[in-house]
């Protein structure tokens, strides 16, 4: 019997968890396919392991009762699956220890790890030997790179430079870092020369005895350790024989692969680019009528007056461009546009700096309106995703909503995809990383991309005028979006995963068979 293990990283409510939930649906579908061909393929077992933080920020592992989960899937109770997944499968999983997870993974023929950062911020893998045990060349691996790491590291450095914590950093070092970011924003990616410069800066801050480097280590030693642990994991991956490195976009694949080569001087061998499965697609398939009800409700709510809506979905953080969206709203309102800014953000409480700033803007100009949906305010739409999908569909029907993604870092762009798939929304986005690729593939309109803040303001003003002239539809390519919808469908992606896994297991069996043949020939020769 073949054993497939999937290690789901649920430590943070972030893109990695969303991806993991999508993957769970893909593997449930995969199991359904395997069951259909059981007579030919033999028995296959799939196990889900979840890693999550406990109440004390310590990582714990859980083994999901796959049979029970599959029973729910067979009944097509997808909402229940998503609900369970969001709660880290509480109720249908049992807690297991570090030794158990190490044994279970090493005893599986195929291992899918949903986050290459599984060993980082993970107190269980403090010892490198434990990480080594998981990446031990035993069986076949598939590992997901959800993030563009060099881009992330660069943005972390920019944030550190912008913070008040570093008093001794020289202008030279700061300029080097800011120039790297500027060049990244101009090009939409970090080229090879800049990657090497980024690595040199990290190296310098890690090892130099200058005052600024010592201060940096005192303050951000934890971050340097994080980078080092990533580098260690990357190096291990270059040593593995039977591993597929999975990336959501070519840009992320290229960027990470070059980075790995630059830091470890060896290449990761096999790379596959595959769009990430989006669980909302499955919800949309099975709960159309219910979503329609929510759409009607939000349509009724927003279909009054003729305000232009600017929609922002994302965390309240600098790298997501929250400051740019607030500044844009102020600039529009200042110039007389009575716009409505709709924000969906998990942490947008009344006590936040951004909330207060928005309050100040509408009071200063006596114009504009803000709508916030946030977990911090107790009215999150994401807690029950069908509401969110209903809202997107409603805003799409209004033909007056612009979805704006001002992020500085985007490996894939899940929120953007949700906005264009469910809302068919006109999207203004920063021409960077994964979004740049979605543009190049024709899913995002190339006329609505921007790089600098000035571009964003000018573009938004132009688009508002176009919308007022009834040209909303000209900016949305509905046919391309329909194709995209299939590419991110978890159940469709199950076939892609099946192909990859099938080939990997075949390669593994072939290599084992060849080894046996060589050995038996050796024995014959000796005899």
């Amino acid at each position, binding site marked *: 019997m073949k054993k497939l293990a999937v290690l789901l990283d649920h430590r943070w409510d972030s893109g990695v968890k969303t991806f993991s939930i999508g993957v769970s649906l893909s593997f449930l579908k995969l199991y359904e396919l395997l069951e259909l061909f059981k007579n030919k393929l033999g028995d296959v077992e799939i196990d889900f392991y979840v890693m*999550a933080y406990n109440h004390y920020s310590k990582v714990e592992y859980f083994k999901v009762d796959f049979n029970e989960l599959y029973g729910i899937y067979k009944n097509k109770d997808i909402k229940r699956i998503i609900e369970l997944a969001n709660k880290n499968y509480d109720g249908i999983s049992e807690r297991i220890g570090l030794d158990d997870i190490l044994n279970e993974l090493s005893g599986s023929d195929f291992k899918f790890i949903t986050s290459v950062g599984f060993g980082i*911020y993970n107190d269980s893998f403090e010892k490198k030997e434990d990480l080594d045990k998981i990446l031990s060349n035993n069986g076949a691996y598939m590992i997901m790179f959800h993030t563009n790491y060099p881009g992330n590291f660069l943005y972390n450095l920019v944030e550190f430079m912008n913070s008040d914590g570093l008093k001794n950093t020289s202008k030279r070092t700061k300029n080097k870092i800011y120039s790297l970011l500027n060049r990244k924003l101009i090009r939409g990616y970090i080229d090879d020369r800049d990657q090497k410069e980024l690595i040199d800066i990290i190296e310098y801050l890690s090892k130099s005895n200058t005052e600024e480097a010592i201060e940096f280590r005192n303050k951000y*030693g934890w971050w340097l350790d994080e980078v080092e642990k990533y580098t260690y994991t990357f190096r291990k991956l270059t040593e593995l024989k039977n591993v597929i490195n999975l990336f959501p976009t070519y840009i992320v694949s290229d960027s990470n692969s070059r980075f790995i080569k630059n830091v470890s001087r060896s290449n990761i061998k096999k790379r596959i680019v595959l769009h990430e499965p989006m669980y909302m697609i499955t919800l949309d398939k099975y709960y159309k009528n219910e979503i329609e009800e929510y759409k009607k409700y939000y349509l009724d709510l927003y279909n009054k007056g003729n305000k232009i809506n600017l929609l922002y979905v994302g965390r309240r953080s600098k790298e997501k461009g929250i400051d740019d969206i607030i500044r844009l709203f102020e600039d529009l309102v200042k110039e007389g546009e009575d716009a409505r800014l709709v924000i969906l953000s998990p942490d947008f409480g009344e006590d936040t700096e951004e909330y207060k700033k928005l*309050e100040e803007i509408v009071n200063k100009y006596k114009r504009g309106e803000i*709508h916030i949906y946030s977990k911090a305010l107790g009215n999150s739409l994401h*807690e*029950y995703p069908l509401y969110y999908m209903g809202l997107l569909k409603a805003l799409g029907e209004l033909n007056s909503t612009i979805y704006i993604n001002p992020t500085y870092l985007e490996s894939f762009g899940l929120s953007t995809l949700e906005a264009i798939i469910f809302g068919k929304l006109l999207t203004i986005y920063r021409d960077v990383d994964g979004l740049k690729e979605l543009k190049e593939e024709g899913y995002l309109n190339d006329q609505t991309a921007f790089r600098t803040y000035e571009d964003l303001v000018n573009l938004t003003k132009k688009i508002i005028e176009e919308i007022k002239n009834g040209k909303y539809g000209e900016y949305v390519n509905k046919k391309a979006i329909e194709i995209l919808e299939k590419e991110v469908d978890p159940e469709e992606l199950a076939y892609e995963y099946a192909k990859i896994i099938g080939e990997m297991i075949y390669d593994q069996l072939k290599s084992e068979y060849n080894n046996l043949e060589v050995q038996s020939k050796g024995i014959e020769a000796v005899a």
Partner: protein
Amino acid sequence: MALDDVVKNAFAQLSTDASLGQQVYNAVISSLSDTLQATAKQIEMQLDPKVNKSLKYAIEGFNINSTKDGIDPSQLYGEMGNIYKQNIFGNGTFSNIYLLSTLYIRGLKKLGYPDPITGRREIATRQERENAQNITNIIAELLPESLSQYYQSIGKNVTKSEIMANLDKYASILYGAYSGVTNLIGSYIISKTPNISLLESSTRLMSTLNETFISTMEGSIYTMYSKLQIPEAVALILGKMGQIGLYNNTFDEMYRKIGSYIGQGLKQQQNQPVVPQPVQQVNQPNIQQPMQQANQPRQNQQNQLVQFPQPHVIRPLNQPQQNQQSI
């Protein structure tokens, strides 16, 4: 008494505290009580050697090494517990200050500051750093208050702001004293026997107990803060809890629980039924509208409308603010 009963009793006492106000109690304390009782249940699992392998090895090592040395493990455990309690909880008012200082410095360490005793730095997860930021904010409210009250009680006039200016220094010294209790226990063992294995297993056991206790206190503060995101209010409740002895009662309960495994083989206990593990439940955010609710047939369109999340609206002041209402 189980740990959740310790919490329950403490909150029952708080409910009668006039300075907190009945309304505050009704609104906040009762919800905190439930959450903390759930947390206490979760912590109890950490005190179960079947679940907590680190504790299991510490107890087994201690049992084996003390028995080999001809020392009654239960008696030695009792003596070690007394040293801990005398030094940490011996002075009622000051014991809270010890604990708060320790929590404060642990928080600072997670935020990247070096350990004031060893100079070593710690790597913390993002979540740990976020929690540490909250905990240090809360304790920065509470510790100066507790210290100034203490000094006033011994006739020393010092203002809260004077203490605040040197808070890190006060806290570092007290943290050092707290951390030193393990060494005191170690020196007691050495005074009884030259057996280094017993020394190591004894200090390991007490460090495990100490760590579990401190993490429990940290966890309770995180839990309270997640329910009630006002540092001053959490500080007030924590202060009251300290006054009514929740900290040392919690320690006593943990000490007793671990004590029940001392001096006996674990095999017998492993045959006991496994307690269901509610670990994840406590971690979950409050889901404002669970999935199942939406599966229920709606009575009518009007009812349906009021259930949907409404936008939180900010409008210019001259226009009506219509949060949670139709726009």
